[in-house]
């Protein structure tokens, strides 16, 4: 009965005109940036953060959430038609989606991607609604040591999944923690690393940091490249998959939904991980694995379902524990804290309208996205023809103005530009910005948890291993770190042995 009561209560919030409108705005913008390569959901959410200051927190989170899961829908369009992923979680869709389009089956690919995303997204929201309340009661057993260890686990998982070097990703997490200490110490009131700049007393803002690292640096990198977009000109027919296509795809959609949802909950996980793992799973269980990459509908259905359900699952640790599962959730956490709302176990009691309103808005958002992505597919195809040379000045300009209006201060614009240059150099030298931003957002929580734990234990770090949940988190983190080292050690031994044999 609670489920339905919460369901109805949430809908009364989600159906308020302002929330409905911003939900539509969020999913529309999300689809747009998912379709357009060159900017992803993180950069967009960072750019739109200043806009959320003037609207109620529930509305702000509904809009920002809409951008995130909307981008998962939109990303499939450009992956299928142009073979360029609109955002990271749609990379894997390129493999079979583009091949389907080349064989004249673009309509089926787009249709199954949209329907699969809708089914997965809806199941994901149901899962969120069912799992979040019991997890809240588990979260109430978390004390400072558990929170600290869980955050450390989150850093390790995120860096474990780093595309380049894990060591570099860990280094970025350390830099993020250091950046997070800039400003006034909340316990002692002492200014830290402010260099006598008054604007830094409140720390480096999340919006300038994220806009710089993800927005400005992306522009600097993209303008250096010449990317030719060849959009397949086949007519889009038959957006509704045939019965035979449904029979093949439905299993993949359901498996992708489940795997994506649980991978999305994992700290460090998210839509990207979900899409990759679901594709690998489908290939493994397929009777014709050699056909993956040639236009298999399962190769589109599974990752598209997974990335959408993962997007919903990622809300669970944020809303129940107050720990962001990935950098997108870190931006949402930042947005909540800007509105003086601390997510965690007490969120559902202190702000039930926000909690259930956001969840219910996702049902509406998924319906809106199905409408946006099927009948309006022609519009998105036209947008793909807009050259990047016209887009990037707009994106740059919106970033600059967006940064200024945060505090009507040029300092925020300067900081954004500085982080833009730093982000550009970081990416050139193969350092990923995501661990840095996640660590930066978590630093106030991390520091409080660390300090409180040490006060509780009288200065002993043993408290982190003597409490079972905390110990479990640290053991898993250590195991992941060790498992990443083992292949290196093995390969090094093999290389040394080979070199020794050559010398003989």
């Amino acid at each position, binding site marked *: 009965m609670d489920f339905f009561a919460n369901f109805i209560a949430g809908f009364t919030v989600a159906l308020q005109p302002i929330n409905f409108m911003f939900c539509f705005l969020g999913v529309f913008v999300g689809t747009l940036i998912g379709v357009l390569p060159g900017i992803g959901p993180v950069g967009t959410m960072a750019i739109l953060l200043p806009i959320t200051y003037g609207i109620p927190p529930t509305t702000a989170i509904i809009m920002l959430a809409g951008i995130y899961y909307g981008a998962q829908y939109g990303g499939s369009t450009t992956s299928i038609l142009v073979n360029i992923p609109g955002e990271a979680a749609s990379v894997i869709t390129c493999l079979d989606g583009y091949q389907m389009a080349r064989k004249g089956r673009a309509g089926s690919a787009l249709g199954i991607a949209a329907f699969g995303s809708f089914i997965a997204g809806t199941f994901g929201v149901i899962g969120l609604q069912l799992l979040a309340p019991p997890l809240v009661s588990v979260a109430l057993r978390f004390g400072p040591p558990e929170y600290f260890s869980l955050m450390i686990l989150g850093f390790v998982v995120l860096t474990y999944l780093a595309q380049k070097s894990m*060591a570099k990703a860990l280094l970025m997490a*350390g*830099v993020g923690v*250091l950046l997070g*200490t800039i400003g006034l110490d909340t316990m002692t009131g*002492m200014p830290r690393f402010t260099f006598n700049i008054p604007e830094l007393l409140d720390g480096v803002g999340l919006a300038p940091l994220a806009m710089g690292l993800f927005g400005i640096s992306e522009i600097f990198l993209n303008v*250096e490249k010449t990317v030719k977009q060849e959009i397949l000109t086949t007519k889009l027919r038959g957006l509704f998959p045939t019965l035979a296509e449904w029979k093949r795809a439905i299993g993949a959609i359901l498996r992708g939904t489940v795997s994506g949802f649980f991978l999305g909950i994992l700290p460090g996980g998210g839509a990207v991980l979900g899409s990759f793992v679901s594709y690998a799973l489908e290939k493994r269980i397929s009777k014709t694995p050699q056909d993956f990459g040639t236009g298999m509908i399962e190769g589109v259905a599974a990752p598209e379902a997974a990335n959408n359900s993962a997007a919903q699952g990622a809300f669970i640790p944020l809303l129940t524990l107050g720990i962001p599962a990935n950098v997108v959730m870190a931006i949402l956490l930042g947005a909540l804290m800007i509105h003086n709302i601390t997510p965690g176990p007490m969120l559902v009691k202190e702000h039930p309208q926000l909690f259930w309103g956001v969840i219910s808005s996702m049902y509406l958002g998924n319906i809106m996205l199905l409408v946006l992505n099927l009948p309006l597919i022609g519009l998105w195809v036209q947008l793909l023809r807009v050259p990047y040379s016209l887009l990037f000045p707009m994106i740059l300009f919106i970033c600059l103005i967006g940064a200024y209006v945060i505090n009507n201060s040029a300092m925020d614009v*300067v900081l954004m530009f500085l982080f833009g240059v730093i982000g550009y150099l970081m990416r050139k030298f193969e350092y990923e910005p995501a661990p840095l931003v996640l660590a930066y957002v978590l630093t106030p929580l991390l*520091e409080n948890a660390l300090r409180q734990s040490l006060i509780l234990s009288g200065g002993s770090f043993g408290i982190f291993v003597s409490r079972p949940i905390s110990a479990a988190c640290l053991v898993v983190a250590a195991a992941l770190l060790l498992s990443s080292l083992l292949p290196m050690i093995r390969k090094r031994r093999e290389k040394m042995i080979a070199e020794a044999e050559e010398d003989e």
Partner: protein
Amino acid sequence: MNADRVSSLFWLLLGLIAVYGSFQLGLGTMNEPGSGFLAFLAGSFIICVSGGIFLQSLIRFRGTPLEVKSLWAASNWHRSLIIAVLTLGFILALEGLGFFITSFLLLFLLFKVVEKLSWGKAVLIPALTLTVTYVVFNIFLKSNLPKGIFGF
């Protein structure tokens, strides 16, 4: 010049500065950590990991090393440099000259000089963009865009 070697030395220096700064702030005691405690831990961590990356770059047991020159070899880095300079100019002039003038100049130069669009497009697109931005930020969101010395 090995890219990992250069970058790791940079981060090593940052870590050393952080550790020095944390001592200035005070580490406190183990049962009452001070303002510099977390910065000390973060700085020490940065030093250790960057040291590891530096050593790894010397040993080179993994693949072909990344050279600094190669990072910019096959790219139009001049474009990003020009855009960065124009952006910096915008930031420096924004509060002095005001939102309209600096924004128009930035967009016009980006479209005309960098992207080499026609005069018509290079004027029309910024004009439309400024109008929409003004409506959204100043009227809808009630932000205060800078007016500059000319009052607009």
